């Protein structure tokens, strides 16, 4: 081809390159494509199968009876054109050309009847691949049509008020015990009788009594017997009594009695 041929059609055919599919190119019989358009043209194909599908569709060829000679001739011409353009020729296109050539050569060979065994049509494999590819090509188009996030579907994103609540860590009871055991390891003054069951009951009672006394008007006295709950039984009464003694010992409460055998009154200090 000479310069003129190269340049002339460029102006006319350039728009073809921007359109995908049908209107892209009216393939001349010699498959001539203006060089500048070729690049764009090539990019519209996803590979040799895609190109082959295009050629077959374009020629309105009956796939079952692919005229392999014609197709492979076109295909090779196409590759030559690419080659001339110094495209980095994808190996896949060459493989396909080789496959077409192979099919062609096998079809040219005289049919040898191998004892009752039917020879597979060399085109069958190509047809299978073309069909499989076409199927996935359609699948991709369907996928693209699905409503898609960020394009067709938008998830709502309202603002959220600043969070004022504090999220507290969790604590297991066992952690508390471990902490205490750790302390015991370190602290000599933490003697064992202080963590006996009675002690704790007394301590709880001490807290309760102190709180009870405080909840009453601090200036007021509380009657001694009112601190006892008979439903707690004998043990409860003893614990309450011990708690009162302990509170008194620690100067947390004041115990007073006006005269012997009169009522005893308690007050938080």
């Amino acid at each position, binding site marked *: 081809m000479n310069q003129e041929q190269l340049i002339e059609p460029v102006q006319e055919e350039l728009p073809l390159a921007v359109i995908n599919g049908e209107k892209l190119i009216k393939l001349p019989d010699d498959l001539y494509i203006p060089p500048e358009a070729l690049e764009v043209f090539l990019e519209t194909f996803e590979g040799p199968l895609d190109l082959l599908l295009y050629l077959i569709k374009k020629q309105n060829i009956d796939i079952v009876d692919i005229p392999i000679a014609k197709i492979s001739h076109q295909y090779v011409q196409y590759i030559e054109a690419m080659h001339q353009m110094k495209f980095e020729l994808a190996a896949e296109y060459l493989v396909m050309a080789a496959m077409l050539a192979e099919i062609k050569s096998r079809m040219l060979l005289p049919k040898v009847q191998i004892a009752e065994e039917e020879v597979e049509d060399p085109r069958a494999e190509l047809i299978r691949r073309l069909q499989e590819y076409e199927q996935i090509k359609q699948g991709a188009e*369907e996928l693209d049509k699905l409503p898609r996030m960020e394009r067709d579907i938008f998830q709502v994103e309202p603002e959220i008020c600043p969070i004022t609540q504090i999220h507290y860590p969790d604590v297991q009871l066992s952690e508390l015990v471990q902490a205490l055991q750790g302390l015991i390891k370190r602290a000599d003054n933490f003697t064992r009788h202080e963590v006996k069951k009675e002690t704790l009951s007394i301590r709880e009672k001490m807290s309760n009594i102190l709180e009870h006394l405080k909840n009453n008007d601090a200036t007021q006295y509380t009657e001694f017997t009112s601190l006892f709950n008979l439903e707690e039984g004998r043990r409860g009464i003893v614990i309450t009594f011990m708690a009162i003694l302990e509170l008194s010992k620690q100067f947390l409460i004041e115990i007073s009695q006006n005269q012997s055998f009169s009522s005893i009154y308690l007050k938080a200090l």
Partner: protein
Amino acid sequence: MDNRRLINILESLLLSHNKPLPINKIKEVFDSYYKDKFNQQNELSTEITNDFILKLLSDLSSRYQNTSLELVSVSSGYRLQIRQDYSLWVSLLLEEKPQKYSRAFLETLALIAYKQPITRGEIEEIRGVSVNSHTIKTLIEREWIRIIGHKDVPGKPALYATTKNFLDYFSLNKLDELPMLNEVNIKEIITA
């Protein structure tokens, strides 16, 4: 706590979560509240069951009739989204135009979606071209596909499959909701 408040809580959870919310996550929130220190006002007196959450979700859903919102169920949970009817309007507000995917990208994704689990070699065989590493990388980064194993053939190639994220993104609950692949007859295509 009355149902209206429970439904509102559900609404606030769905609105504030930028991913689909699974039932069990909703239940976790109610549970952590029920069991614990936040529940000082005794708002929750009984545990909330999965069935009850489903009922609340259906009540919530009916709230959005005649609004621009809809509650949908996708693969990994429930999601509040703008009805497609309004997406054109939303897109008018977008600063970035939504991404368009190349054919190579879509075909690779379609192969993984429809033929999973599948190796890269198998994808290349069907498409007739080598698969761009960048395509696979992008698909993995988007968490649309992941490697679920290796095929027991020489080279132990990775087997790719789609993820829940993929289904969520395309508003699908399950893989079999993908559009059906047509049986292709090349003859028909050509004469069509």
